[in-house]
């Protein structure tokens, strides 16, 4: 393996850690459908970037951040559930995205394509992913209180609206980081599936976060290594491995039982 290949693997593992940690709270907050849908918001961004001949990832990042802020703002204004608002934003984004992106580009955008990244790109991506992981670890107490009871969180001095926005932005950036190798359609799955399996297997916060991150890293690396051997794109292989892990978790009793 070339050093560039190694740095891409390190990036993938770092993104998986971030996805596992972000996903742990998405599962606990019961916003998994929203989580999946947010990743599709990247599509119109990729389409616009291709039309404007700029880096597709840049378009995706901008659109994901705009999507996250829109979901947050509409939710605050209308008091609708995150799932509902995300559903609306997602459907609109998918419709616009499919009109802007065509053919091979659309398939790549949806399912991801294995790309070797330059050291600068891989380094920045890895640092961002680790930053998101650090955000979740540092903010875990606030996130726990806000999900258990908004009243307890508020009276403990937590600014709920700000925390929600921070979380949604971290979520959007995580999705953007994974678009290269998983694509817009499947990145949401890397956030949700390992976390859903971890929820089946654990009964305390530390294990939930740890197992979710570990499963995300494991399935990602296995998927990346396996994909060329089975002649498939990395995204579907990673998600298939993750789905099998979830299936195994359903069959297995909870750890510690």
């Amino acid at each position, binding site marked *: 393996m070339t050093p560039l290949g190694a740095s891409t693997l390190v990036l993938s593992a770092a993104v998986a850690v971030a996805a596992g940690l972000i996903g742990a709270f998405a599962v606990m*907050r019961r916003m998994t459908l929203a989580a999946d849908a947010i990743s599709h918001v990247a599509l119109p961004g990729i389409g616009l970037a291709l039309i404007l001949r700029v880096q597709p990832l840049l378009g995706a990042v901008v659109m994901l951040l705009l999507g996250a802020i829109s979901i947050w703002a509409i939710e605050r204004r209308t008091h609708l559930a995150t799932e509902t608002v995300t559903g609306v934003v997602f459907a609109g984004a998918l419709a616009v995205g499919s009109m802007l992106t065509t053919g091979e580009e659309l398939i790549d955008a949806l399912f991801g394509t294995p790309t070797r990244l330059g050291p600068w790109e891989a380094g920045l991506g890895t640092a961002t992913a680790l930053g998101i992981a650090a955000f979740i670890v540092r903010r875990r107490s606030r996130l*726990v209180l806000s999900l*258990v*009871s908004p009243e307890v969180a*508020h*009276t403990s001095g*937590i600014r709920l609206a700000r925390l929600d926005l921070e979380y949604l932005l971290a979520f959007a950036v995580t999705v953007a980081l994974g678009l290269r190798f998983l694509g817009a359609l499947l990145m949401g799955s890397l956030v949700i599936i390992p976390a859903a399996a971890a929820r089946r297997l654990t009964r*305390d916060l530390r294990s939930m976060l740890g197992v979710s991150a570990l499963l995300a890293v494991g399935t990602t690396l296995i998927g990346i290594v396996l994909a060329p051997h089975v002649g498939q794109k990395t995204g579907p292989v990673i998600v298939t491995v993750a789905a099998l892990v979830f299936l195994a978790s359903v069959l297995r009793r909870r750890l510690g039982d």
Partner: protein
Amino acid sequence: MRTDRRSMLEQLPVLEVRSLSVSFGRGMVLRDLSFQLERGSVLAVIGPNGAGKTVLFKALVGMVRHAGLVSWAPGTRIGYVPQKLGVERDLPLTSLDLLQAKADVVGAPIDAIESALSMVGLGAAEARQAIGDLSGGQFQRLLLAAALIGDPSVLLLDEVTSGVDEAGQERAFALLDRLVAERQRTVLLISHELNVVYGHATHVLCLARAKAWFGPPREVLTTETLREIFGSTTLHVHDAPRS
């Protein structure tokens, strides 16, 4: 000088509410509510379902938009026990996870967790249990323990004893009585039980159809008021009023 300032602050009402109104859309839930509480008071908020009791608590802590004034004394720290959680209890969270989260957010020392657990009578075994595995009574005690972390000067308890057996209720109220008597804590509690009001409250606030009655229980809870609030004078009265 500092002592003078401190004793002056202690003289101030803990909570002053003036002309508080809350409306959702066209419906007014709370109308022109005014009252104030001194340190060490126990206020019971009673009224039929939908009278705005939980809305009042949310307005007091600034979680719903309202007209009028809500003013807490400087330095007030609030411990809140919610009526229900934002999510299902079936989470990968232990009691200790919840208490550690609260201690972390409010910057309480680590021994505050142990002391809160022992105050509500929860042991090490319950602390390690997932919150979904606790009984209704144990879970209410856990929420009370979480509220006690950070040494709150005011406790807001939204139906803290609902789903708790009689022994559990007695233990919870014995703890509240002790906090009030020994530490001059102020307690605001929502209850459906008039015996709680007579047994533990220094003040009662009755809410019904956007109207309100406030004062000592024996003055406020007249036959006429009870009939106007509940349409009956016998609802949930288990104990005779204390003399």
